């Protein structure tokens, strides 16, 4: 068996894939691409802001409602429950909603690009 020298394909990101050709070469194709990027960015920003608002609301609620932080549920203070457990479902839900909507945006883009 001969020894073959394997070398990393340098900067593979530079090569143009076939799939993108029609999308990038025509004006209509670019219009679709731009609108896809815009809708994906809008979606990401909306989900991020929504999450940050909820994130900020947790400590704000604790600071504004007197006595809430000292309330205990099953021996555990309420602020520990909120920050230690309560925020994780919010993260998961935001992520799940985003993935669904992002895939839907892409499906819509595909339909448009295929119909052309």
């Amino acid at each position, binding site marked *: 068996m001969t020894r073959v*020298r*394997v*070398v*990393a*394909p*340098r*900067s*593979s*990101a*530079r*090569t*143009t*894939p*076939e*799939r*993108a050709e*029609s*999308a*990038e070469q025509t004006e209509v194709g*670019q219009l679709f*691409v731009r609108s*896809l*990027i815009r809708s*994906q*960015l809008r979606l*990401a920003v909306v*989900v*991020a802001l929504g*999450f940050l608002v909820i*994130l900020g609301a947790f*400590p704000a609620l604790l600071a504004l409602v007197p006595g809430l*932080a*000292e309330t205990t549920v099953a021996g*555990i*203070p309420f*602020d*520990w429950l909120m*920050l*230690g*457990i309560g*925020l*994780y*479902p919010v*993260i*998961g839900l*935001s*992520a*799940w909603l*985003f*993935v669904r909507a*992002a*895939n839907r945006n*892409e499906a819509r*883009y*595909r339909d448009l*690009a*295929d119909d052309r």
Partner: protein
Amino acid sequence: MNPAIAIAAFAAVSIATAAIGFHGLRISRTTGDFYVASRTVRPWWNASAIGGEYLSAASFLGVAGLILLSGTDALWFPIGYTAGYLMLLLFVAAPLRRSGAYTIPDFTEARLDSRVVRRVTSAVVVIVGWLYIVPQLHGAALTIRATTGLPSWVGPVAVVIVVCLTVVAGGMRSITFVQAFQYWLKLTALAVPVIFVLLVLAGNGAQPVAPAAVNPTGQPPGGLYQNVSLLVALLFGTLGLPHVLVRFYTNPDGQSARRTTLIVLGLLSLFYLFPTALGMAARMFAPELASTGRADAVVLLMPGYLVGGVAGELLSALVVAGAFAAFLSTTSGLVVSLAGVISQDVLDGSVRGFRLAAVLSALVPLGFAFLTDSLALAGSVGMVFAFTASTVCPVLLLGIWWRGLTDIGAISGILTGALLCGGAMVAGAFLGAGDTPVWLAQPAAWTVPAAFAVMVLASRATRGRIPRTLTRVMTRLHTPERPLSTSR
């Protein structure tokens, strides 16, 4: 605890790691396998591997230690570590996978069509990687010191040797299996003792020594600026970590990159319940552990402290195994990604070069670890997050979403972030933990906006340098993979 048990636990984890690593050797055959597992890793495997790699000494030991010290302020650490992945999912996961690049420097070079940008990004990535490996080695030193009585240096040296052997033997392919295994090992190694400790506490009706709200150290609470700045660092730092990004290239396409991240979020949320519970139990039932100055060892000491006897020894051994899994997995993940960058930029990109680079990327932080002293683990890792958030994060976010980015803009932004944040870290090190003002100790809240602002303004000023390949690259980043022509 009995030193022999701790040593046996470490040996078992090392042997299991090496065994899975060598098993992978039979599978990896091409350079593609070596670097990114030929992009054929399934989402569940990949997600477990990401979780395994991400849960470092800071998560396994540091979070519980910090909760013991600073209570609810410390709860922002696990929240930030997890929510960082949400940001990664929203802004980076799918486009980065679609860029088809192997490393962050590959991405920036392709996006901005500039070798200089590549060089600058490579330098930043290597610095980030080295900074991140040092706390892992500190964690290993702490664990060895707290559990076996051997000299501290044994821990870091052992970790570096095992990591070098695994990475040199199998590259990324076997690393994926090693990392996936280590997530589940870490989860078990923390969950079982925590549940046991809680059951024992509930069973013998132990009364808390102090309510959770009582502060065992007398340190003042963090305040609003500190928490906000920390969250900025953790939310935006995660998406620039080199060992996290390289994992996304092993997804078959952009949509599976998203699915993988979704699973990762679940795995991380599940994991962080346990250090949180342990830290809180320690605060209520063993607050004296905080005053020994070894709060980071609380995860290692609690089972023996509260359970005792043979059961306590066995649980301690399990925790030690999990801790070493954390040091080994994060260090090897970082070494793989650093070796990828160094071997492609400095050496010739061959498998031999990769191996050489791997050894190099593990030895340099080992030297650093001997020269520096261990601070709070979660805190020192937090500084690395601030540094990535000020350097890699702006160039990734603007590169993916903004057409106006230029090479000059990217370089000036990265250098601004690196100088400001690096300067704050150096100044903080000189002043000492007690005398550092909070805006220097948690710099992300002003260094990240500064880096973004400079990057945008410098790009605006050099508008003529927008690369001609822009349209092609942006199309590639954002359009789904399935060929458009097949259905016509």
